[in-house]
């Protein structure tokens, strides 16, 4: 089979799961959005004073980028969950479904509100006067005259909302809701363009089909063709059934493995899932989670296991700014996780994925730069590229202050494109990840850190509090602890990141297990 065919059939195999989840979250949000917006819009036509604040609120929501809106709901719900936990003894999962549905519900409101208000206000005043004059109550006037007459405009709003929600639902992946966005986020990270396109096309097709079915219903109602309305409604039900039925027959997994948004994480999550399955344990995945989201998801038990890095926890969660040797960090971190969050540290995998400043070998040699200290003199003439979070992270502040680094220019870019950017000379230095396979491929050198300003970043296996003493889980994953050195991880990462003979994360994970077993 061709490489394209292989990736395509791999994507196709995930479709029932991704599409089903996508449809569930979109339909729930849309239904909730309609249930809220339609009555609100009707009330706004009766009380003109409410109109402006309502539309202004919905418009403001619309200007918030979808990703940000979704991300905002996660900490909010986490806080509420903690409150209900304290008050009633039961919390709820703040990950995935709930934040996605709530954010998408807000997103669906503007077109429905605006079109319903416009539709009702646009009715011929003579007709409205007649509805009162023949003796209708305001309620009868609404249901017998105003809503039926405004229906085409309202339906247009509902169609717009449906298309928006289905499109924006792809962004619910980073808050832990599986959707068609999983294709896009995973594909972007592993440069699997077939996956990215597959996700985009699937979401677009779903939106178009739903839009056209709603249009069919609308014209059926307007032209009083019952058959046409029924066909449209039946089509919507069929889409729902087709998307949902495969999901019902799937057994729910005993364990959930989490992954952040980059190649190494997808590979390691695949590896853990394969190990669990090899040990007869069922395992599901939550991929593409944000760095803070995944940690909180583990602490609250929404996921059972994932790989994090000691420096991340040191700086972001323990709020430590001091630099300590590798062993000290591991030890203190383990104790802190247990005490503060109940999270168990199963052990380090054996490699570090640390921030490291990297340059093209020829450029470094030409300028005579081997350490970060050597860089300081040249920095004012050089441009540095970093991923989206690097320049906001405490590591960058520590590095900058320890050495007095001052670059001519800072550029933020997607970590996927960082390596080719430095290789092409678009930037001179990047904040590379030390285990990334592209360091070897693009012939980059990482600069040593004599002042030890950057904390160590040991990859560590973390278990959720309720899994801390789970023997089956520990036994399945223990063989990975201490078995993956940085060269092996780089090579594995490269297998999934390279352009030629690209492997899927699952294939790369199987290759990695073979190497561990051969040791």
């Amino acid at each position: 089979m061709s490489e394209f065919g292989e990736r395509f059939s791999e994507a196709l195999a995930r479709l029932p799961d991704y599409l089903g989840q996508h449809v569930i979250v979109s339909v729930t949000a849309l239904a909730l959005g309609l249930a809220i917006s339609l009555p609100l819009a009707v009330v706004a036509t009766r009380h003109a004073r409410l109109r402006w604040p309502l539309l202004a609120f919905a418009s403001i929501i619309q200007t918030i980028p979808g990703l940000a809106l979704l991300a905002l709901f996660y900490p909010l719900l986490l806080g509420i969950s903690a409150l209900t936990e304290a008050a009633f003894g039961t919390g709820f999962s703040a990950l995935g479904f709930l934040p996605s549905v709530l954010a998408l519900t807000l997103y669906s409101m503007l077109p429905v509100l605006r079109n319903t208000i416009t539709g009702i206000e646009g009715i011929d005043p003579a007709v409205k006067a007649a509805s009162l004059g023949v003796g209708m109550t305001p309620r009868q006037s609404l249901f017998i005259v105003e809503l039926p007459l405004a229906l085409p405009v309202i339906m247009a709003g509902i169609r717009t909302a449906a298309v928006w929600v289905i499109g924006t639902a792809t962004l619910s992946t980073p808050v832990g809701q599986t959707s068609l966005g999983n294709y896009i986020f995973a594909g972007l990270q592993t440069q699997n363009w077939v996956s990215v396109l597959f996700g985009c096309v699937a979401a677009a097709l779903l939106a178009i089909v739903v839009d056209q079915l709603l249009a069919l219903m609308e014209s059926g109602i307007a032209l009083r063709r019952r058959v046409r309305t029924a066909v449209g409604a039946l089509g919507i039900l069929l889409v729902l059934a087709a998307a949902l039925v495969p999901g019902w027959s799937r057994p729910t997994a005993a364990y959930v493995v989490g992954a952040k948004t980059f190649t190494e994480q997808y590979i390691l999550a695949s590896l853990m899932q394969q190990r669990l399955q090899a040990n007869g344990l069922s395992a599901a995945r939550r991929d593409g989670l944000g760095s803070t989201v995944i940690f909180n998801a583990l602490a609250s038990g929404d996921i059972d296991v994932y790989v994090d890095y000691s420096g991340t926890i040191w700086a972001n969660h323990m709020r430590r700014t001091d630099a300590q040797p590798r062993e000290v960090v591991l030890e203190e971190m383990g104790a802190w996780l247990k005490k503060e969050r109940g999270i168990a540290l199963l052990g380090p995998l054996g490699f570090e994925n640390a921030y490291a400043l990297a340059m093209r070998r020829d450029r470094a040699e030409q300028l005579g730069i081997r350490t970060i200290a050597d860089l300081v003199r040249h920095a004012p003439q050089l441009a540095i590229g970093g991923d989206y979070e690097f320049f906001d992270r405490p590591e960058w502040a520590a590095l900058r202050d320890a050495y007095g680094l001052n670059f001519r220019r800072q550029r933020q870019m997607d970590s996927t494109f960082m390596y080719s950017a430095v290789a092409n000379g678009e930037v001179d230095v990047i904040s590379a990840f030390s285990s990334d396979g592209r360091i070897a491929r693009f012939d980059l050198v990482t600069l040593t850190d004599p002042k030890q300003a950057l904390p160590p970043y040991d990859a560590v296996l973390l278990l959720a509090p309720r899994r801390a003493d789970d023997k089956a889980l520990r036994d399945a994953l223990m063989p990975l602890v201490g078995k993956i050195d940085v060269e092996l991880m780089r090579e594995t990462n490269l297998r999934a990141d390279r352009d030629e003979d690209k492997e899927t994360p699952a294939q790369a994970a199987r290759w990695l297990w073979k190497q561990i077993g051969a040791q």
Partner: protein
Amino acid sequence: MSAAPPVIEFNNIIKRFGAGRPGESGVLALDRISLSVPVGEFLVVVGPSGSGKTTLLRLINRLSEPSEGHVLFEGEDVRALDPILLRRRIGYVFQGVGLFPHMTVAENVAITPRLLGWPKDKRETRVDTLLELVRLSPADYRNRLPRELSGGERQRVGVARAIAAEPHVVLMDEPFGALDPLTRDAVGQDYRRLHDKLGLTTVMITHDMLEAVLLADRIAVMHQGLIIEEGTPHELMSAARTDYVRDLMQMPRTQAARLKGLMEGGAP
């Protein structure tokens, strides 16, 4: 006039618009109007736009409320009556017709009976009777939508809708204003016959004096919120007290004379 109490009675009605805010007295739309309409009368209220005639009509079925004074309907103060039930007891023919565009002719006609909870078969029979009354063949017209009707047909349906629930009183707000002269005359004459046949009491508003003279039992002339004169067409034609009404009543006669002259002059 008969000894029976008037169907509609206005007592010292004042209506202001835009009042209420401190320091604003508002626009005086009706200035101490007193008027009564006996059973079976066809009253036409004539006046230029802005004279207050539509406001006066809307007070009867409580689409509007007076600032001061009382409106009595069949002897009861309308303020004591539920406005929804009151409107279902009174037929109303709207300016610009106001048929519901998404409903068929039959559904439009049957709307008030439907609101009153008449059973379906009784409504169906009633629709056919009404369409016959307004000279539209039920078989041809029942299932048409308003947009498939001519202006005259629409207003006939509007009349049928107004009298569907067998009201004793029909209010008409410039009902034939938008029709061409031929249709207008035909629909007007047909309605006058219905009025007599069904024993209705009708209050109609128009700015067309000729229409008023041809249809009315009695005419009330309004000007700037006041009823400046009232009487039978004959009384007003022969003995108007004010210059304004005299000029107004002169119009049909002048037109008729001009027409006659034209006919004679044009004859061989």
